[in-house]
């Protein structure tokens, strides 16, 4: 067995194309819990209504051997059509959508707006005592913005989890 030391823990963003049928999400989630794998984030939505195909993006972590095993186990599920480790397929984009509510007044309001502008967050709701900002980006950016809002009256955060796609001409097809 190769030395575990050269087999470091890494994060992987895995895209899975599946037949959109009842229970498929439970199968995927059950596989992770049943085999002791970690899910950092999971998103799912239909991407081809006509052919009834959904795309799941899972962010997980492990050694290369564990991630290879996760991919193989996913691929073995009967309704799974394609499994792709975006982290290995070369450069890829990863994005999340966040809605964040800040409750504040006075100078703190101005500061929140200025920062939102700098981070290209959009104001999607406002009252005299609150804002809801909408923001997309990678996890680091969303976390940085959330940290800045904390002292200004951060009240509520909701995030979609990561979706990802490869750069360039390579496309994931079912």
């Amino acid at each position, binding site marked *: 067995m190769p030395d575990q030391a050269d087999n470091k823990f890494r994060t992987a963003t895995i895209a899975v194309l599946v037949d959109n049928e009842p229970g498929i999400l439970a199968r995927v989630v059950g596989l992770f819990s049943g085999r002791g794998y970690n899910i950092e984030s999971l998103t799912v939505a239909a991407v081809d209504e006509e052919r009834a195909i959904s795309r799941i993006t899972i962010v997980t972590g492990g050694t290369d051997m564990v991630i290879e095993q996760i991919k193989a186990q996913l691929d*073995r599920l009967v309704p799974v059509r394609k499994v792709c480790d975006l982290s290995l397929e070369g450069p890829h984009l990863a994005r999340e959508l966040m809605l964040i509510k800040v409750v504040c007044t006075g100078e703190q309001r101005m500061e929140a707006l200025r920062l939102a502008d700098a981070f290209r967050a959009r104001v999607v709701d406002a009252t005299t005592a609150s804002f809801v900002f909408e923001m997309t980006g990678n996890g680091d950016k969303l976390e940085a913005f959330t940290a800045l809002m904390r002292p200004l009256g951060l009240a509520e955060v909701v995030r979609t989890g990561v979706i990802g796609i490869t750069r360039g001409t390579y496309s994931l097809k079912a």
Partner: protein
Amino acid sequence: MSAATLNAATSTADIMTGAEIVLRALKEQGVDTIFGYPGGAVLPLYDALFQQNAIRHILVRHEQAAVHAAEGYARSTGKVGCILVTSGPGATNAVTGLLDALMDSIPLVCITGQVPTHLIGNDAFQEADTTGITRPATKHNYLVKDVKKLASVVHEAFYVARNGRPGPVLIDLPKDVMLGSGPYSEAPTAPHRSYRPQREPNAESIQQAIRLLKGAKRPIVYAGGGIVNAGPEASRLLTEFVRLTGFPCTNTLMGLGTYPASDKQFLGMLGMHGTYEANLAMHGCDVMLNIGARFDDRVTGRLNAFSPGSKKIHCDIDQSSINKNVPVDVAIIGDAGLTLKALLEAWQADSQPQHTGALAEWWSKITEWRANDCLRYRQEGSIIKPQHAIRRLYEITQELGRETFITTEVGQHQMWAAQYFGFDKPNHWMTSGGLGTMGYGLPAAMGVQIAHPDALVIDIAGEASTLMNIQEMSTLAQYRLPVKVFILNNEYMGMVRQWQELLHGGRYSESYSSALPDFVKLAESFHAKGIRVTRAEDLDAGIREMLAYPGTVIADIAVAKDENCFPMIPSGAAHNEMILGEDQEGGVKGVTDEGKVLV
């Protein structure tokens, strides 16, 4: 399909009830036998069964037994086993059997009744979330809510069960869907819209494998249950390949019979209770060819000490078996039979010579290990050694020359059966390997006997295991199945007792079989014959009496109570840290605290 032909197809389609659709689809899939137990939610299917003759229903006495019987049927015929049980408790009782089949890659289709669709989720009488409960216990499962899709789901279920790595598939069928009407459709040529397991091995990987194998000085072939699943031709190809190369060959528990046990190139079973020579050859080899086995923890022992110096080639139909426990150098995904065919052709086409000198040296090393005679035992006096009982059973069945199938329960007797009963053909050895399900052997034997009415079917059992599904004696009586239950009765859960002796200071916590039945009377009460043998000098006569009797027999063989199963690789130990029994008993070396945690 064009619109016109589609219209023609639907207009001529037969309209029938859901129950009739199921039976017709089963028939089209080649099902002639179904193991089951009725109940409220499956009454429409039982009514349809009553009105036809094509499919024979075998009424078991517990749903778990229906699944094991179907496993025995499937494993001994190569066909898909079929089960019909009711909702709720019917389905939950079947779960152990389904998981057993999943772990051992046995193709099954299990139909469960379900409460009508409008009651699902209402905690209705005998309702269970069957697809939810069985999701991790099946290869795939379905809840059919629309009778129009029923025929295609049944066809798809059989396709999924038998293709790729075989496994159990469950169809949950609400009662209103069985009673509703819909069109029947025949099995399509592409029964699933996306599931296409790879069968053909990759040519480049085959070449890499051949380069390693030709260069091998200390090779070994390690063959498993995948070869049984690939059909008898795969076993023939394995034998041809091993003979052509002159390599030594070992089998896993699930693979016994894929290479003839009587052949001189066979090293016996490997693993926790494998032979000295097989395990040392695995440890010392320089090239390992694994075909249809999965580096199970019973086989590898301590992973970081497993065959440390070898290049490993792993052929498996299931990608997820590759690099799961043991990193390998060459991976070949595909059907075991097609892979062996490709290996044979590539070996013959390759001009590189073998290291014949080195191979001869390797064989002389193996011969030295063999000389250890690790399976030796001393049968002295009147007390029957369990090893001797199985050895005599084997020898006497060989004399008789009848086609013989063996099933087992789980425990010491199972390992002794694997060690002392020789299998020269695949599909004749049925055992619960992955899940280790006590109570497997009696119902599995039932399924085998149904499939092979004229063959000799023996359940090699322990007195504790066999009591777990003893109710099936009633099924054996009903269908006059002449199964022989050969109980090695040591009045202990022997394997538990052995571990307690070796690892827990001889504190035999709850591992004794108290208040056992009189198995002779038990047999008689189920209209069978009972035989009890207590002395070694009566053993042969007892075995002959059992084998000569035309009906069901329980032979209760009183064996040495404290016999241990050796050789043994203790948990957490390596192949070269094996305990060899008699001379080395008294202390188990190499069991670390980490090892004690393992099962």
